């Protein structure tokens, strides 16, 4: 008798909970079907995307929204959508690396404007001129944003990514390829159109791959000449070479104007390997990770200092015969 009473009480509680969930989800659905109708299209499309309406059915989606929420990443941002008791969505926005961080461990923000300042520097305090570089700082959270605030914050972290993503979804992303961008430049950037197709490949490989930028490169040399460099797997597209890339291209256009010369250097095979190690370490941004006493790594500081002590002449450069000097 006792057991069956507690069983039926448990059953009733479960039932009551599921009724509450159902009412809760119903309020959410009502909200989605009414208020969202008036939202600007781009914003609505993004809010639907963050809760995966392209990936799961209505029932599953609402079950998840009521129970724990739905999470999705946008670059390094992690967005979690939940239903508040009145059926409105509330959004938690944080760095994906802080997925499990509690509010006590993270700096809590409420105003989306704060995103602009959070996006300015890396965890090490270095300035981030390229907002979509994979160097977003960690340790912060916006735990309770409205839909409008979420989109605003995301646009401060990764400007124009939502608008461009939406245009792409609609099939009308306007891509401006390298040649057109280069030819448009004036002033000190006038010379960037001198880069050859091969040099444009190097440009994209230097700056645009996923390890350097989270946008998925959609521009090519021109509409008919695809670059071989991987476009990247990012959620949001890059529709045109950015100012960082144009500024870098300018310097390369200047440097590439030099004529090549032959140099005769004397190095041991290990020293040649070491030069390669140093270039690799700098190019991969790995110098910080090399341990102080790891003299087995060619890019280790002591190793580099040894090479400098041994091979640099009084002028502070690599001692070696310049073929042109002998002429």
């Amino acid at each position, binding site marked *: 008798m006792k057991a069956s009473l507690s069983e039926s009480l448990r059953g009733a509680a479960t039932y009551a909970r599921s009724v509450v969930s159902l009412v809760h989800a119903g309020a959410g659905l009502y909200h989605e079907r009414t208020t969202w109708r008036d939202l600007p299209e781009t914003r609505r499309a993004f809010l639907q995307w963050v809760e995966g309406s392209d990936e799961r059915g209505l029932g599953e989606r609402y079950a998840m929204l009521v129970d724990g929420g739905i999470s999705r990443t946008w670059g390094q941002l992690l967005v979690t959508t939940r239903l508040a008791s009145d059926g409105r969505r509330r959004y938690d926005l944080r760095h994906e690396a802080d997925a499990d961080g509690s509010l006590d461990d993270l700096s809590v923000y409420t105003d989306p404007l704060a995103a602009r300042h959070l996006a300015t520097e890396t965890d090490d305090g270095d300035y981030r*001129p390229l907002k979509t570089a994979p160097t977003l700082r960690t340790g912060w959270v916006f735990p309770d944003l409205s839909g409008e605030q979420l989109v605003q914050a995301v646009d401060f972290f990764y400007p124009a990514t939502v608008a461009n993503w939406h245009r792409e979804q609609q099939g009308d992303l306007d891509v401006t390829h390298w040649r057109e961008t280069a030819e448009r430049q004036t002033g000190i950037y006038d010379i960037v159109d001198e880069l050859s197709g091969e040099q444009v490949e190097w440009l994209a490989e230097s700056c645009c791959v996923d390890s350097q930028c989270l946008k998925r490169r959609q521009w090519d040399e021109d509409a008919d000449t695809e670059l071989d460099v991987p476009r990247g797997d990012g959620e949001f597209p890059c529709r045109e070479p950015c100012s960082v890339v144009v500024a870098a291209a300018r310097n390369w256009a200047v440097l590439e104007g030099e004529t090549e010369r032959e140099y005769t250097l004397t190095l041991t095979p290990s020293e040649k390997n070491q030069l390669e190690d140093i270039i690799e370490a700098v190019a991969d941004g790995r110098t910080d990770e090399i341990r102080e006493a790891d003299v087995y790594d060619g890019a280790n500081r002591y190793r580099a200092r040894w090479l400098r002590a041994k091979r640099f002449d009084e002028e502070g450069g690599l001692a070696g015969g310049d073929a042109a000097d002998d002429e």
Partner: protein
Amino acid sequence: MSQALVIVAHGSHLNPDSSTPTFDHADTIRASGAFDEVREAFWKEEPSFREVLRTVEADEVYVVPLFVSEGYFTEQVIPRELRLEGWDVEQWDSDGTSASHTTLTATDVAGKTVHYCGPVGTHDAMSDVIVQRAESVTGDPEVGEGFGLAVVGHGTERNENSAKAIHYHTDRIRETGRFDEVEALFMDEEPEVDDVAEFFESDDVVVVPLFIADGFHTQEDIPEDMGITDDYREGYDVPATVDGTNVWYAGAVGTEPLMADVVLERAAEAGANVGNAISRVRAETGGVVGD
């Protein structure tokens, strides 16, 4: 009709402080509630001029350049990058300092009207900001009597309008008679800021560079050129004495909070409905209300 304000500025790939004044003035205007949306855009940062218009939802967009003078950026780069349809500098009908606004569309965004305004640096209200900067740096709201004021520009740039803007404000402030002397000085041409003490009789001279943001020029070059410090990294005194003259160096005028008022005035003149935001922002940022 919803309306958006877009503040366009230079920005920097190297210096994070370059965009700080733009953000600060945008925030002041956001808080005033005069616009449905306010967005910053940059030549060197993001959103770029190319993509900013697509980030705003409003139908009426007021674009105000946070630049000190008319010239290469306001006449060529910004209209080209915003893709303003049919832009022609003649539409501003400017003598070099009198551009107000023009109304266009942009091929980047269908259905939006873009009101393209002249730069903040040549607006009459900028003279007030220069004076306010002098008040801020001296800590004296009445500063003027017994003081000289130097307005400093870059000089020898791509066009002559940058010097025109400096002279324009210098003349306007001189005419008010508030300061004993007002002179225009330049970094790279005569009369040079290096010899600031020579151009003034007054014992005290406030030096205000007409620059939007603090950076290399205002924090390193000008202080060292004037001799108020030997090494910019060590900072300088305010005032610092050079050849018997007390030099009150103000740093970039663009960091003065009252700049937000100039942005608002530009947009209002182009037809934005800003209600009483101008007088509220002036009151908040220390300007004279109802001026």
